[in-house]
């Protein structure tokens, strides 16, 4: 049975910038451009907005960032601010906006994200992990490599199966005119890709990208009054926090993505069998593979077999990351996946899954420390 809030809020508009290297642009400027596009897409005036939720830019931490952005937008929001639990923040902020609207705290909310690690600073991605620097424990890829090694050892997952995730995303990204990397990847090319931190190769790692994305959240009633026929209902959402660092995590191959998805499916009154298309956070190939398991699309340990043989490509059992994901469209942490989820429900994707009525989107942060899940339905 659905939760009463299921379907009450919608994503009324989406917008983004170009993706790639956007030299000279700061994150406030990128956010404003994406938000302007999202407002235009929703067909709503800026002054209707009274909620502003923004993810902390990963590339550079700034105090009171949401107020800097509100100033640039000429807004005085009733509610909002910066939320930071990594890449999961985007869907978490969409959830909070939906709840705030239901509670009468605001009526129209912007959720936005901008990052510029490609031409700005990428220091945040390469930092040493505290005192563990004496062991040479540096960089984000190593954390995911540690998880991937355990998964491969425990469940027999192969490098070629990780490659299947990259190949699916690269195939989808190749036909997306806005994708940063539009080169399909063959298995042979994947196998020749240089090792970064074993067992992960360069082609297991997402892009480093400048860019911004934004979505507009409002009630379904409000969207209907505005005559917005492309508003995509939010059927369910959920969060989960694994919290333990990789070194301390009792089970390296299961995360609170499972908790997050369970909450979201329960809210929507749906099961994985009801989902037609999925946008799964793929900062690293292992992350997408494990999330598919934790979401219940296959059993724990069977993710490797699930992603093989074109099963997650267009025409397969569950098309995943139909705009290319973080591996091919843009490495930005996550909101672009929500936008593609919206496009699929509207029937506007460049890799449209025919007849898709229900879509799921995952966002995660840190080394799978945090997770957020969003289930979307077709416009009313």
């Amino acid at each position, binding site marked *: 049975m659905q939760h009463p809030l299921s379907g009450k809020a919608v994503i009324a508009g989406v917008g983004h910038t170009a993706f790639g290297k956007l030299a000279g642009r700061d994150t406030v400027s990128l956010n404003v451009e994406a938000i302007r596009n999202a407002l235009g897409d929703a067909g709503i005036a800026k002054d209707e907005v009274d909620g502003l939720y923004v993810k902390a830019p990963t590339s550079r931490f700034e105090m009171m960032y949401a107020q800097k952005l509100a100033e640039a937008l000429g807004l005085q929001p009733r509610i909002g601010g910066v939320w930071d639990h990594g890449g999961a923040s985007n869907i978490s902020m969409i959830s909070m906006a939906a709840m705030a609207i239901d509670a009468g705290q605001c009526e129209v909310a912007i959720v936005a994200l901008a990052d510029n690690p490609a031409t700005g600073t990428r220091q945040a991605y*390469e930092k*040493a*992990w*505290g*005192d*563990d*620097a*004496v*062991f*040479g*424990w*540096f*960089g984000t890829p*190593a954390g995911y*490599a*540690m*998880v991937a*090694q*355990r998964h491969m*050892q*425990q469940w027999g997952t192969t490098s070629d199966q990780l490659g299947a995730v990259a190949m699916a995303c690269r195939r989808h990204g190749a036909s997306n005119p806005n994708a940063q990397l539009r080169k399909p990847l063959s298995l042979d090319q994947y196998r020749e890709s*240089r*090792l*970064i*931190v*074993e*067992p*992960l190769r360069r082609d297991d790692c997402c892009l480093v990208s400048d860019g911004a994305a934004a979505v507009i959240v409002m009630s379904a009633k409000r969207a209907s009054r505005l005559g917005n026929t492309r508003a995509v209902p939010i059927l369910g959402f959920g969060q989960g926090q694994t919290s333990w660092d*990789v*070194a*301390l995590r009792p089970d*390296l191959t299961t995360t609170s993505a499972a908790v997050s998805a369970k909450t979201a499916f329960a809210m929507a009154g749906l099961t994985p069998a009801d989902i037609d298309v999925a946008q799964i956070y793929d900062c690293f190939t292992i992350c997408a593979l494990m999330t598919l398991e934790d979401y219940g699309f296959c059993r724990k340990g069977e993710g490797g077999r699930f992603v093989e043989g074109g099963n997650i490509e267009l025409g397969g059992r569950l098309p995943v990351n139909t705009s290319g994901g973080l591996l091919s469209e843009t490495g930005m942490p996550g909101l672009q996946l929500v936008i593609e989820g919206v496009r699929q429900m509207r029937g506007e994707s460049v890799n449209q899954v025919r007849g898709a009525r229900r879509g799921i989107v995952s966002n995660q942060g840190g080394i799978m420390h945090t997770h957020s899940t969003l289930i979307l339905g077709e416009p009313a």
Partner: protein
Amino acid sequence: MSTAAHDDVAFPQPDPNEAGRPFWQALRDGALTFQRCSACGKGWLPARSHCPNCLCPDWTREQASGRARLVSWVVYRMAYHPAFASRLPYTVAVVELEEGPRMISNIVRADPQTLHIDQPLSLVIEDESGTAVPRFVPATGQGA
């Protein structure tokens, strides 16, 4: 700038907070230590002021036996810090001490291709530019 054995760039040094300082001092004295809660008996690393299980601020410092098992590992093929450029490839691992706490460490004097999960390990403490660094080697013989 100190001169590391392998490089002419400084080896990264730990910069512990107050709770963490005794951990590194004990290593200089030849002991790998962890904290154990006086109330609930939970053992933990890294150093904290309060037990992460029951939040009790009273704990004791215990010496680990040095016996551990391998949880997972990675092999660096690129250097994120110049001090490690000449050490490539090198192995970083998650190890679980037999007393329970887990930590990041290195596996040394072992071919990474021969490693497997749950492999028994033994502690070795090695000097790096004056810092005593706890590392592990595959255990040999009985009782490993």
